[in-house]
């Protein structure tokens, strides 16, 4: 059962593509106007900032109503012996109320991803999850089926199931997860071909990212080592390393590069972006265990490497090679990107440069080397 009207969502897909083809002069002006008119029925969506605002204020309303609710019923809660039972009741009541309001909003107001519907959905789900957690906690049984309900997130469920295997879990956990995420990934790739699943296009995309990141995390050296220490009580002495350390070092180093390589080869942005983010994650992993103790050299070196990589790639891709180009793709949201960059610069630079420290007056040179007044003569 779909809450939103699928046909109208399809309209927005059509209009978006038509606009893109129109911008690339594949569709004439008259045709474009006709297309806009034919598929004019649309759902109400909103700009990302309006979305954030709507989300926040919906949250305010729910919290305030929770406040009033507890004001009236707090005496019941304190006086009864079953405070948790009352908590469960409240959670389920609020979850139901959220979903009910959500359904009626979608039906009557024709909203789609406006922030209101997302807020109600997520808040409702949170209440539901807390409620179920309280129930399982109360019953406190060891039944895996109950755990399944607590662990509505499938991955948590999988962790618990593998953990239950006992000693073997230690050995197979990473590989079980690699297998699991690999299967998940290729299943999604297969399903993505189906055009009748367009309604869930965004969900499939998110799951694809999760599968890729999970696969990496399953073999990442940091994750393996810290998880072994915290969950499997592994003790690592000086000079020792975790079992199969070499394999995981290699995995940590290679997987991001493979993601980037295949992302470029297959022209797949999801693979490419995951790869780029994970290159940074791998760099941090290695730096964590093999730090030289000189962050300034690491930063400078990383900066020079990044600049060189970008410099040579841009020069190489000025003319398209292998179907990849540096030319910008025509799309509508470049404004946000260009202004975001300006903000990031200020964030990045203000912390470190000495000029900034100078504005605190005496700190300059004085903090580290001692004697604020000593100035140039040390």
């Amino acid at each position: 059962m779909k809450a939103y009207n699928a046909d109208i969502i399809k309209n927005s897909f059509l209009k978006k593509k038509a606009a893109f083809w129109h911008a690339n002069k594949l569709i004439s002006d008259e045709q474009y106007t006709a297309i806009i008119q034919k598929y004019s029925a649309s759902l109400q969506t909103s700009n990302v900032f309006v979305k954030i605002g709507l989300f926040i204020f919906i949250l305010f309303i729910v919290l305030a109503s929770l406040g009033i609710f507890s004001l009236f019923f707090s005496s019941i809660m304190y006086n009864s012996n079953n405070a948790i039972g009352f908590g469960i009741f409240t959670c389920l009541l609020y979850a139901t109320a959220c979903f009910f309001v959500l359904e009626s909003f979608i039906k009557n107001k024709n909203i789609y991803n406006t922030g209101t519907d997302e807020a109600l959905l997520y808040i409702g789900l949170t209440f539901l999850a807390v409620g179920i957690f309280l129930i399982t906690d109360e019953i406190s049984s060891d039944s895996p089926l109950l755990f399944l309900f607590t662990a509505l997130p499938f991955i948590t469920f999988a962790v618990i199931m593998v953990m239950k295997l006992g000693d073997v879990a230690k050995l197979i956990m990473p590989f079980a997860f690699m297998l699991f995420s690999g299967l998940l990934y290729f299943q999604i790739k297969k399903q993505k071909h189906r055009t009748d699943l367009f309604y869930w296009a965004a969900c499939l995309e998110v799951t694809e990212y999760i599968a890729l990141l999970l696969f990496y995390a399953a073999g990442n050296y940091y994750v393996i080592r810290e998880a072994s220490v915290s969950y499997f009580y592994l003790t690592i002495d000086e000079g020792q390393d975790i079992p199969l350390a070499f394999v995981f070092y290699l995995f940590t180093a290679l997987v991001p590069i493979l993601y980037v390589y295949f992302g470029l080869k297959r022209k797949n942005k999801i693979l490419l972006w995951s790869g780029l983010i994970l290159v940074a994650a791998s760099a941090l992993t290695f730096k964590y265990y093999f730090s030289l103790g000189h962050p300034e050299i690491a930063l400078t070196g990383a900066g020079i490497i990044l600049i060189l990589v970008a410099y040579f790639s841009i020069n190489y891709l000025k003319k398209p090679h292998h179907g990849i180009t540096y030319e910008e793709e025509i799309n509508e949201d470049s404004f946000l990107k260009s202004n975001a960059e300006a903000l990031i610069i200020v964030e990045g630079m203000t912390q470190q440069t000495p000029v900034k420290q100078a504005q605190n007056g005496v700190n300059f040179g004085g903090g580290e080397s001692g004697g604020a007044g000593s100035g140039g003569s040390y």
Partner: protein
Amino acid sequence: MPIYYIYTSMMELNQLYKDEMIDEDQFKKIEAFESSKLFSVNWELRTILYLGVLLLSSGLGIFVYLNIDTIGHQAILASIALACLFCFYFIHKHKQPYQNEMVVHASPFFDYVVLLGCLLFALFVGYFQYQYSPFGQHYGILVFIPTVVSFYLAYRFDHKGVLSIAITGLASTFGLSVSPRQLIDNNDFSDFSVILTALALGVIIGTWAWYSNLKNIKKHFSFTYNNFALNILCIATLASLFDQDLKIISLLVLAGICFYFIKQALVQQSYLFLLLSVLYGYIGLTYIIFYLLAEIGNMNECAFLFGMLYVIGSAIGVIFLFLNLKKIVKAK
């Protein structure tokens, strides 16, 4: 052939063809276009370049700061100066004539060299002052010179990032930290003179944004200016609302600021400013309501109930405003 890259377009294409919005010739043309479409990595490479410049300059900054008393000063100073000169030489060689509109530079590296040059110059001036103290104890000059240079670079070579650096520098000469994360952390807003300074700075920046919009001087800079102005002004007024005994005046000033920026946001269709103004205004109003409730009802149950009812009512009002935004804008 990467099928999954095409599939999303094929659904739309088939539908348009089926509904006879395009003819067969176009269908084939678009199909060919989609399958031969180039894969653009423009944004990814630009981001990598940006990160590289930022990491390099902050790494060098720390490097200089840590080694300031230990290694050959002349060598460091000379190498930074050389790198800086190289940047300025590159800029000089590839520059375009000044114009009030947006300038598109031929070289993809131009913007990044301007940024790097600006950051290195600031580093150089800081180091030079530390080593030789040509300006004596006037540390203000240390920020002032790079600020002036940054403003020049930003306007001459049309660079929004350098403009933000310049504005941050300008604020520092006033004694304020205005980068997004430090705005609240680093400023002592319990001091009334800091609030007044912040207000003055905000008004100056905001007025300049308004004036340059009017005179058509680098209109695309107005987002950066207004963003700084809005945040500085609102946080300063909220601080005075919370800490000072000027509740009514502060609230009125805040209302005025929010009104101005909501109007600006509607004119410029900028939803970020709309969101920020509404949020700041809402925080101010809510604070006053709860302040009054605490004064009158001493926070008993009845006052609490009123407070919660106010939150629900006002939030519904704001949501209604957001959802009917397009109608409101059109009505104007």
